[in-house]
């Protein structure tokens, strides 16, 4: 029962039963159906099906060039796929702008960190708060009390988030001067500042040492509970993926080759072949 919600193929079988489908829609936060993205002659993503229920942590893994980041760019609105649909919270987001999608409650981080290096940690987080602000820009020059109240709220929220990602002591430092791991945490804090329901993390553990990766694993679990998030992540670090994800999709050459809970994926021969190469599968006697 629990499993079936994850599996798109199974869902399709019952799609004529309306009651069941409605129940699914309330539970599924993000659903991609048959998404295909081609760049010229190259098919970066072909026929991708994902269904992500609320409150879970799921991962997309696959070798380099498998189309994971392209999939993220489609989900967050940077690319419009040629085929298929992406439904977020019951709304088809295909063709919407990234800013719109963020407003609807999806935030993401980037594989190559995208912060404003000259701005301080706090300022970077405050930028994330902007999307939820109510006062329009012209209230700033007029200096209306409501504006300053909101400004103070944003600052306070920024401080709290900085504390949450263990950057409280670096709040006035330039983001560019932070060590790599801290920049990653800052980017997550900025994404959290947009008050998302779904958080997409693009290789959050890239460039981290084992201890940092371990901390990150716990951190991801904690913020999920604390902020009531659903998290989808791309990761190369198998320890992180297997440790934190409840469900995993495996991509190769733009297509899904396997999916399931970590144990299923771990023992799937296709995954081992794709991810670790032929030799590893031989070693394992598969």
């Amino acid at each position: 029962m629990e499993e079936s919600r994850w599996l798109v193929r199974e869902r399709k079988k019952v799609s004529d039963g309306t009651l069941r489908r409605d129940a699914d829609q309330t539970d599924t936060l993000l659903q991609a159906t048959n998404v295909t993205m081609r760049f010229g002659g190259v098919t970066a993503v072909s026929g991708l099906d994902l269904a992500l229920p609320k409150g879970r942590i799921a991962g997309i893994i696959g070798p380099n060039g498998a189309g994971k980041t392209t999939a993220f760019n489609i989900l967050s609105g940077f690319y419009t796929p040629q085929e298929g649909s992406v439904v977020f919270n019951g709304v088809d987001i295909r063709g919407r702008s990234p800013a719109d999608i963020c407003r609807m409650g999806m935030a993401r981080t980037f594989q190559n960190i995208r912060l404003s290096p000259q701005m301080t940690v706090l300022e970077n987080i405050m930028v994330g708060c902007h999307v939820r602000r109510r006062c329009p820009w012209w209230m700033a020059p007029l200096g209306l009390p409501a504006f300053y109240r909101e400004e103070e709220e944003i600052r306070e929220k920024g401080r709290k988030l900085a504390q949450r990602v263990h950057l409280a002591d670096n709040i006035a430092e330039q983001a560019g001067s932070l060590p790599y791991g801290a920049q990653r945490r800052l980017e997550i804090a900025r994404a959290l500042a947009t008050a998302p329901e779904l958080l997409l993390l693009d290789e959050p553990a890239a460039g981290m040492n084992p201890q940092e990766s371990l901390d990150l694993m716990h951190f991801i679990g904690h913020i999920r509970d604390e902020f009531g998030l659903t998290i989808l992540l791309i990761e190369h670090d198998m320890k992180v993926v297997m440790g934190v994800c409840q469900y995993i999709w495996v991509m190769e050459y733009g297509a899904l080759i396997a999916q399931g809970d970590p144990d299923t994926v771990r023992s799937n021969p296709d995954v081992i072949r794709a991810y670790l190469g032929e030799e590893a599968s031989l070693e394992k006697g598969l």
Partner: protein
Amino acid sequence: MRPDRNTFLTIATMLLFGLLLSQAETFLGDYQIYIVKLIFINAILALSLNLIYGFTGMFSLGHAGFIAIGAYVSALCILSPEQKEMMWILEPIIWPFSELFTPFWISVLAGGAVAALCAIVIAVPVLRLGDDYLGIATLGFAEIIRVVIVNATPVTNGSLGIKGIPSHATLLSCYGWTLFTLVVLARLVFSNFGNVLRCIRDNEIAARVMGINVFGYKVLSFCLGAFFAGVGGALLGTHLSTIDPKMFNFLLTFNVLMFVVAGGLGSLTGSLLGAGIITILLEWLRAIEEPMDLGIIELPGIPGMRMVVFSLVLLAIILYRREGIMGTRELTWKSLGGLFGRGKK
């Protein structure tokens, strides 16, 4: 923003400076007052370009166009109908411009408003371009505005320009408009909207993912910058009392760009300093255009020598101190305190 010691200090300094300027005639000559007024006007122009280029990262070379619009609109507003009838000798001035007659402050605001409106028209197609392309396109638009001014004789008096604009721009009113510009921009830039603009400058993709309407804010910043360029242009017109299309060529944009770059991109106080220092230098360097007797050799006066020196100065800034005087930092009471060795936290 709760009133604290620094806010109080700032307001006190502003008032004190205003008081000083109201008495300026007792200790400054006409020429010095002329220069001080020019500094204020240039500061407004520099601040407005800094919002566009320094804070939002849009490389706009169209500033002279907006300045021209501001100057012409305000001149049309401020001149009396009789004066206009006398001055338009090539072709008679057309209605409604012939009847337009407003107080000084309305004419300045009108100059700014029309410049901002033109900026919207320009922004929508042009701001989709990035970096260098934006520079080229805005440069083209500034040139278009200039050509339109030359040829719209029934409105602008063509290449003859407009003369005898009443000199309403007193020292205090220039100071007041500079303060107005500074306060509006500072409040915007030091609020979270400033962070948003800087985020757009540093990383547009990140800004889009953070739910920021990047194009909307670019248009906003561009138009606001154009508004204050128009205000500055209006003041420049009444300050010089004569305007003609030739004034508003690329060299004007270049000068404003120099104030901003020298002062520091992304620093409001830097723009004030840049405008102040370079305006004084530009005047002071007039000396080198005159014939010089160096004892052994005698140099003839070379017109344009000033700009040669200035281009070299700009080159030196870009080579050795690209971030300008202030970089992106601001001159604050804290940093001033630190400068004098008694900074309190």
